[in-house]
């Protein structure tokens, strides 16, 4: 069961909120590989947001290799098939964030600990809370 909350008062734009929650539910194991996401029109209709907003979220998910569009026009979760890119290659995207942290004076161990902590809360929240965990 995919659960999505859109808060129109939030500073985050709705497309980003939808994107984040789908990613978070995949990471929490609520959605697993090969799950079919609802059509973007259904998502837009039920959440009462613009159709293009949902399309933008889905587009972003596709670009990041989290979902893909099958031949019969269904959006399928593909995250988990990380064979195309190695972990270090993936994290090179976060170069900026890591340099930022180092520039602020955080130590290497502190950064690794912080990441470990995030990973721990993830596994604790498995099948748990569906909102921005």
């Amino acid at each position, binding site marked *: *069961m*995919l*659960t*999505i*909350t*859109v*808060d*129109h*008062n939030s500073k985050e734009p709705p497309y980003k909120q939808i994107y984040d929650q789908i990613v978070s539910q995949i990471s929490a194991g609520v*959605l*697993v590989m*090969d*799950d*079919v*996401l*609802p*059509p973007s*029109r*259904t*998502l*837009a*209709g*039920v*959440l*009462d*947001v613009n*159709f293009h907003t949902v399309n933008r979220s889905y587009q972003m998910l596709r670009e990041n290799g989290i979902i893909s569009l099958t031949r019969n026009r269904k959006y399928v979760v593909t995250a988990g098939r990380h064979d195309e890119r190695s972990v270090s290659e993936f994290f090179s995207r976060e170069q900026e964030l890591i340099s930022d942290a180092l520039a602020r004076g955080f130590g290497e161990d502190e950064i690794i600990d912080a990441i470990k902590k995030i990973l721990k809360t993830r596994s604790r929240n498995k099948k748990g*809370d*569906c*909102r921005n965990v």
Partner: protein
Amino acid sequence: MFSPSALEVMEMLLVAAIGIILSIIPYVTEKSIIFGVRTPAEFRSTAPVRKAQRTYLIAVLLITVLSEVLIFTVVYRYYLLLAVYPLFVVLMAFFVYLPEHYAIAKRKRDERWVERASQTVTAQFVTAETAQFPWVYAVPGLLVLIALFVIGILYYPSIPSIFPTHFGSNGVPNQYSAKSIGSVFLVGFISIATTALMLIIAYAISRTSFRVDNPSRESMERGEIFRYRMTAMLLLIPVFINTTLLLSSLQIWGIFKPGNYLLPLVLAPVFAMLVLIVVVSYLTGQLGSNIRKPRILAASGNTAGMKQESMMDDDLYWRGGVVYVNRKDPRWLVPKRFGVGYTLNFGHPGTIALITLPFVIILIAIFLH
């Protein structure tokens, strides 16, 4: 002396069930819906709201009691009146509802509730993997259906060429038909059609995504239980209808001669079905709002720390607070606003087709006759 026929007793049972279901609606809707109006938390259980709910309950129960008296004394004489009377009860209850709806809607405008309403929408979406379809509930109904056809085929040779197809309440036949597959299995074919219809609707419901009352985990849990129970209940309904149809088939074929017990025997399954619908609706509530203790609450004690925001205002899609019209929504089924269960999206082109189809078929049938 007045002796009620099957039809009249069925009518009285039906009206009683409809009356009870309609009267308790204010107590089984989503917590944020008051007479079809999305209401912020602080305005929900105020004295005027509770008084309006009580007034509605009492008025609809009075209408029901009055209707039973009317059916018993006058209406039973006219078949046309009997046919439309349940609809008339619904209409009368609607006219009790409507002033209450407009009163709340007016307060909402005057006191600018919308400005205080939250701006969040939370919804549950069915994904292919998570869609659970409790097939097992359909098994009893299908078994009865199979039994009807197996018995019918076995007894077909021994059914006389002219056989009774309609009986009075005392079990004495008052109408006969010539033997053919169509006449022998007419009731069986009705049984197939109703079973198929229920299975299709149950499947559609299990696949329908919907918004929940608020973004709490408890609300999600309630929504999931609601979806499951509605699907299971619809899958169970054929067993009751098919048992009634099986009994009437057995009687038509001369296998089963209940005599004076015909009426209670044939009506018992229908009565059981009505009780089931009332009980499940009350114990579940719309989107699970009446479930005493969802599993998640039992497991974690409480939902402390979870913000119980309400839903963003969506009154503009609900005409009169009951008719859903939203062209942008691709669903044709949506959870009801005032009641337990589902209603159609009248902004969906398929709904318009679905509603006009029976009339078109009737017109074609008349034309071809």
